[in-house]
């Protein structure tokens, strides 16, 4: 599949924003941290990342002006559901932010915070389901697709919140430790996803054309001499050549390094600010590479019609 930069930035940036909002809200609700400024700035960064991501996602649309129509088909479409929940999440997280900066934390704040957490995670879930539900892309039909999106939000937001908390002289040990666990889990999930992805195939030239009874099927002549939309959008091949290298980058830069840095920060209070900040940046960098691979490596069923 063609890796559109707008979609990669949307999923990484809003995933990070939702993860950060999740951590700030849950740590504030449970009173693990209780700092008006920490909450205010944390949620501000989260809202900025989410909004930037949502705006980026409209950039790949052919008619962005009609984007409001995408809120209508939530009964059948995961993309529509994502749009609806994303807007709700912005409302609830903004309300929670307002309570945080004005330091008015009554029942209303508690309810909007919990709804903020719920809608944040649901939006990421919808993002994952958009891809996981697509039948023509066998690799994405893995049960791990959506959990990977969710865990990535927890991981990237987790190290960022730990770093932020440490800058406010509070204890960021809890989110840092849980992010380390998330990174290790995610590494396992990705390895298992890649293993399955190399095995599964949705259509073969024989089953696609139904000519398998005659024997092996290969394309003798393509329908058109130059690449068409289908070839350009679904037939992306660059990544397959470099996939081993890029997977190693995801594992080392995105998971291994943040785990080591996260642990150093946990064991050494003086280094925690620097370590967790770098861990957050590296895990986000890893997420961008992972997301690029997620699209670029995925093989679409239609390629069976074109295989020679």
């Amino acid at each position: 599949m063609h890796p559109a930069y707008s979609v990669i930035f949307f999923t990484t940036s809003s995933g990070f924003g939702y993860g950060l909002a999740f951590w700030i809200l849950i740590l504030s609700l449970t009173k693990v941290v209780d700092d008006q400024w920490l909450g205010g700035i944390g949620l501000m960064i989260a809202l900025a990342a989410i909004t930037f991501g949502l705006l980026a996602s409209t950039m790949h649309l052919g008619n962005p002006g009609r984007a409001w129509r995408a809120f209508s088909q939530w009964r059948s479409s995961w993309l529509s559901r994502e749009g609806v929940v994303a807007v709700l999440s912005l409302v609830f997280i903004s309300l929670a932010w307002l309570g945080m900066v004005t330091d008015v934390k009554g029942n209303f704040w508690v309810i909007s915070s919990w709804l903020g957490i719920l809608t944040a995670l649901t939006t990421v879930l919808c993002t994952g389901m958009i891809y996981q539900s697509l039948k023509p892309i066998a690799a994405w039909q893995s049960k791990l697709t959506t959990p990977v999106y969710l865990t990535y939000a927890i991981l990237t937001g987790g190290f960022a919140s730990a770093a932020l908390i440490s800058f406010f002289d509070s204890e960021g040990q809890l989110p840092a430790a849980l992010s380390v666990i998330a990174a290790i889990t995610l590494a396992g999930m990705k390895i298992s996803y890649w293993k399955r992805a190399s095995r599964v195939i949705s259509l073969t030239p024989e089953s696609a054309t139904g000519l398998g009874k005659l024997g092996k099927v290969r394309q003798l002549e393509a329908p058109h001499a130059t690449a068409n939309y289908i070839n350009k959008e679904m037939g992306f091949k660059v990544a397959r050549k470099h996939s081993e290298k890029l997977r190693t980058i995801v594992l080392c830069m995105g998971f291994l390094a943040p785990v080591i840095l996260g642990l150093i920060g946990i064991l050494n209070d003086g280094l925690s600010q620097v370590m967790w900040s770098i861990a957050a940046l590296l895990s986000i960098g890893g997420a961008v590479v992972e997301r690029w691979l997620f699209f670029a490596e995925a093989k679409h069923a239609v390629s069976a019609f074109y295989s020679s």
Partner: protein
Amino acid sequence: MTSLPKSNPAKSLGLVIDLDTCVGCHACAVNCKEWNTGGHMAPLTDLNPYDSNPDGVWFNRVHTYEAGDRETGRTVHFPRSCLHCAEPQCVSVCPTGASYKRTEDGIVLVDEDKCIGCKLCSWACPYGAREYDPHAGVMKKCTLCIDRIYNETLPENERVPACVATCPASARHFGDLGDPNSDVSKLVASRGGYDLGQELGYKPTNKYLPPRTSKKAQERSTNDDPQNGLLRWVDRLLSN
């Protein structure tokens, strides 16, 4: 509504494509382009039409395959277009309601005024039936020539899709595949018509008729033919 119709459509209009008689002339693709560039989905945009890398929207694409090896192997011309599936995921993924399946005849259409050009429907189609028009910023697809088949200003025998009307080999047939007594359904039953990529569960309406097994090839691969030319001729004459 992009939810699929709950009951079966009253009719299931679609095509039956005979892979035995298709000669791969691309006339269906050309006549389709000609009609539809002025039809319901108009225009079928061309990018760089006079350049070295032309690209553009076509609703029919004719592949040519080699299937099998040696005596039983053969060349098969293979027109590919929208199959107007009974369970089209291209419709249910659409966030705006631009993609829909008609309850009256099962045709899958795009309302271009509602399409935001997110391209997700083209990802959800395993058959590559939807092609994006970057000029208009909307998705385009086969309409089964909705503006021909119901067009009362055309003579009745011309109220068939453009690809069917033009096929010089009569390899394309149009009709109601939901009615077991229609000509197309009978044709499918008698020739063993099949669904493309049926393991994905889209339940295509369009059916493909398999190439007939050549008698000559069958004989050659199974029998010990007499080597002598005259004897072989006599043998064949007598076995008929």
